[in-house]
């Protein structure tokens, strides 16, 4: 008799609606800020800028170049971003020089074709961004200036972080006991599961996520935000997404832009991330 009552109680309790824990909602705020001051006064420069880069050989020909400025660190006077030209894109970084009325960004990047390090100076003055190429008397070339225009960011749900793995530099794995005196720390790395799972286009089921480790789950979630142009507080996230030419950082708050599918997936991803954090390494299932 007692067992019957207990069973009845359990069944009625089971019919109550599931509650979402408050902690998970807070976890919607992404990776905690680590190093960089994210109150850079230059956030107005963040985003994509496109212009026509004059060809050195042929004066009338030009190629379209796009600079995506991801982060300007006013303390260390550095800038990171992405440069796309001729259908190829690469991660670029450089230094920042503050002048009286203008701001100079000097990007350095490796040019595969010419097999040398190139430099490109961008100057921001009076709300306009211009590219500068120094005069080269050796090659008989004059100084050139070309304007850059802001490119409107377009949201594309299908873009992926494929073929690149995220290395979680912030969280080195605990060092295992070893006879060697110095052990190089190792870092969690995402897997190729993230090349095929798109949190913005497919509605995830539990079975899709059950076999993923925490780094993959976090990457899937962060990619949603990256697609919307979220400016990550975490430096590593910024650097990672800058490799992709579809990543255009434009906003520090993209919550209102999230689609219904993305919101559902974020809830599920946060749940699994939290579970991985609490249970993966410990005695238990």
């Amino acid at each position, binding site marked *: 008799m007692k067992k019957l009552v207990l069973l009845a109680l*359990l069944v009625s309790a089971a019919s109550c609606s599931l509650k979402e824990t408050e902690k998970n909602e807070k976890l919607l705020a992404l990776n905690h800020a680590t190093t960089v001051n994210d109150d850079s006064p230059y956030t107005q420069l963040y985003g994509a800028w496109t212009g026509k880069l004059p060809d050195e050989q042929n004066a009338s020909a030009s190629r379209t170049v796009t600079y995506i400025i991801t982060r300007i660190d006013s303390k260390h006077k550095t800038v990171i971003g992405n440069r796309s030209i001729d259908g190829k894109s690469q991660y670029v970084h450089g230094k920042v020089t503050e002048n009286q009325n203008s701001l100079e960004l000097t990007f350095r990047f490796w040019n595969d074709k010419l097999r040398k390090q190139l430099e490109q100076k961008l100057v921001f003055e009076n709300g306009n961004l211009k590219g500068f190429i120094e005069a080269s008397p050796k090659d008989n070339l004059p100084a050139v200036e070309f304007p850059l225009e802001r490119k409107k960011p377009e949201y594309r749900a299908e873009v992926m972080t494929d073929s690149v793995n995220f290395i979680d530099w912030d969280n080195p794995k605990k060092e295992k006991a070893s006879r060697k005196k110095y052990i190089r720390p190792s870092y969690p790395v995402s897997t190729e599961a993230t090349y095929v799972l798109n949190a913005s286009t497919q509605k995830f089921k*539990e079975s899709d996520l059950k076999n993923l*480790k925490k780094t993959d789950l976090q990457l899937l979630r962060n990619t949603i935000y990256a697609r919307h142009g979220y400016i990550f507080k975490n430096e590593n996230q910024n650097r990672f997404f800058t490799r992709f030419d579809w990543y255009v950082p434009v906003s520090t708050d993209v919550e209102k832009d999230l689609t219904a599918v993305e919101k559902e997936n974020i809830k599920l991803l946060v*749940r699994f991330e939290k579970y991985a954090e609490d249970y*993966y390494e410990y*005695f238990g299932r």
Partner: protein
Amino acid sequence: MNGKSLTLSALSPWFWLSVFTVFFYLMIRITVQYIPFDADIAFLRIKQYEVTSFPEYLPIFYIHVYSSIFVLLAGFTQFSSRILHKFPQVHRYNGRLYAYVVLLLSAPSGIYIGFHANGGLMAKISFVLLGALWFWFTWKGVESIRKREIIDHKKWMWRSFALAFSAITLRLWKVLIVFFFEPNPMDVYKIVAWLGWIPNLLLAEYLLTKKLRK
């Protein structure tokens, strides 16, 4: 007649008792997570598909969680020959408790949730098989003592408890495998679903043959 208790090795029974106590404590801590009743706590956090699709899943899951801790209690008393000879009522009482809980609650609920196990078909097969064997061994253990067949009773109950102990060995393997190899969660699970109980059973059989050949 072999009245001696079956010790696992030359190590003192007190050593094994302390080891068992530590793990029993860890299992209590796991059980306590599920108090009070919550449809979305601990392991259920990643079983919401089952919770929402099968109304009987949640109560049966909780039957398993709440009853199984009592099953492990048997480990403290049933394998001591001292208790058996000095306090036979204790052996009988705990024995009955173990048998009732396993046959009526833990094993049937275990078989059901085994059908819904994580880790794909192979894991499901493992857990359902584990539950079924557990039920069968315990049943035979009860049957044999009713017929006063002491040796058989010992054999069946050793097998039964070896399977009950998989609750601990599964989790122990998991923590070790994760520590050394860091595989994906379900890949670990598929392995420990079998590793958790097969070696236990093999070890029990080995010890039984060794002890009873004398």
